[in-house]
């Protein structure tokens, strides 16, 4: 990475580590969603194991999307965004790097927490590994797509819920392939790699479309 990109990346990481909270709150929300399910569904362990991957994926989806609202808002409120627009650096790359840093500080903890939480859901080790692998590949795509919502709602005070609503339809394919490759790993006959590769492809597409659309929205919101 060139110097400026590294500087931006380090700054964003530092900020999220120092301000703290965001990663912990994200993981806690994930935990809350995961624990609320057994309460709702009832303590039927087989049923939980059956819908476990789905719960983990949906929890991760919601935690990621709802945690994204400050991705650009903080920078906009203190005027940093204006200066970034004038810095003479490609905004698409700036968005990509910010997403990367954000994912490292809030998405990765979710992935790390997933195997732990899957114990509550009675998943066996294979399922646990499969869900974690799909989350590892899929959550970056969620962050990148979510960035579009974050930049659309950058000037709004009530970002969170609206962001999630705008972005959920866009994340449907990721969710489908994420869960179905996890399921495929659990139920032997179906091949695991096909949906997994499609998931990887979706993440790559998101890495292109997300930053471009998000940068466009940020430019329009600048004024």
């Amino acid at each position, binding site marked *: 990475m060139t110097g400026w990109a590294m500087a931006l990346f380090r700054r964003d990481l530092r900020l999220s580590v120092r301000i703290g909270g965001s990663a912990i709150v994200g993981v806690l929300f994930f935990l809350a969603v995961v624990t609320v399910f057994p309460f709702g569904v009832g303590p039927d362990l087989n049923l939980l194991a059956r819908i476990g991957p789905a719960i983990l994926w949906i929890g991760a989806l919601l935690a990621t999307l709802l945690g994204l609202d400050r991705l650009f808002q903080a920078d906009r409120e203190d005027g940093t965004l204006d200066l970034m627009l004038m810095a003479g650096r490609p905004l698409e790359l700036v968005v990509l790097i910010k997403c990367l840093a954000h994912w490292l500080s809030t998405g990765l903890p979710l992935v790390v927490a997933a195997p732990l939480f899957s114990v509550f859901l009675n998943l066996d080790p294979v399922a646990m590994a499969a869900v974690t692998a799909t989350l590892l590949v899929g959550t970056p795509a969620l962050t990148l797509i979510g960035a579009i919502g974050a930049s659309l709602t950058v000037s709004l005070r009530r970002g969170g819920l609206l962001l999630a609503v705008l972005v959920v339809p866009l994340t449907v394919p990721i969710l489908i392939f994420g869960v179905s490759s996890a399921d495929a790993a659990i139920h032997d006959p179906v091949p695991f790699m096909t949906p997994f590769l499609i998931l990887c492809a979706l993440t790559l597409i998101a890495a292109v479309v997300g930053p471009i659309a998000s940068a466009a929205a940020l430019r*329009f919101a600048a004024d």
Partner: protein
Amino acid sequence: MAFWDYANPTRFLKLVQVLLPWLVGLCVATFAIGLYMAFFTAPEDYQQGDTIRIMYIHVPSAWLCMMCYTVMSISSIGTLVWKHPLADVSAKSAAPIGAAFTFMALVTGSLWGKPMWGTYWEWDARMTSVLVLLIMYLGLMALWRTMDDPIKAGKAAAVLTLVGALNLPIIKFSVDWWNTLHQPASVVRLDGPTIHSSQLWPLLVMALAFTLLFFVLHLMAMRNEVLRRRVRALRMRAASVSRPATASASAQPAE
């Protein structure tokens, strides 16, 4: 050239004034013919009986909800590329209409599904992607409502509309894949055999009627939107222009 001439808001309003009565008349007439054909000339289906009559509103509204998104996507390109003020007026006023048509497609589909398949809802690929389309329409409407500067809202919504346009084929494809994995071909539907012309004609007439209805409503909604922006601009002026009057107000509280 004609298009760009009428793309001026004031001329647009005049054009709407002239065009609307004709369109409304045409729309009502087509509906009358279409409904007559649907109920009296079209035969009942040998398999489905009279429920086939639901097709005459289900299929046109399903077509229209997709066409409406196309209109919005084109308008969004107009907003982002040519920055034309009428483009985001068009996109904004199409969204509620699109949502309504999507709702109609969903409702008629479910009501058709119950007698045919025994269930109102099936997570079938087509139905699911229409449901996602409905969420997208509603999300766009919410985005428009929450941002008070119409210009900014228009641009944001345009970005989202275009990303959604990219995404819809992906959803369609992924949902197809998803559903066939779990439930291979449990859904029997009639799209295979070509439709008999006694059923095709009413369908086409109804489709025409729905299209006309869309344009009538779209033009009327666009006119409202132009007026709304006019009100906004004038109100801003109203608040600021009379500011000098303040100084002359009496300084004593009327006690």
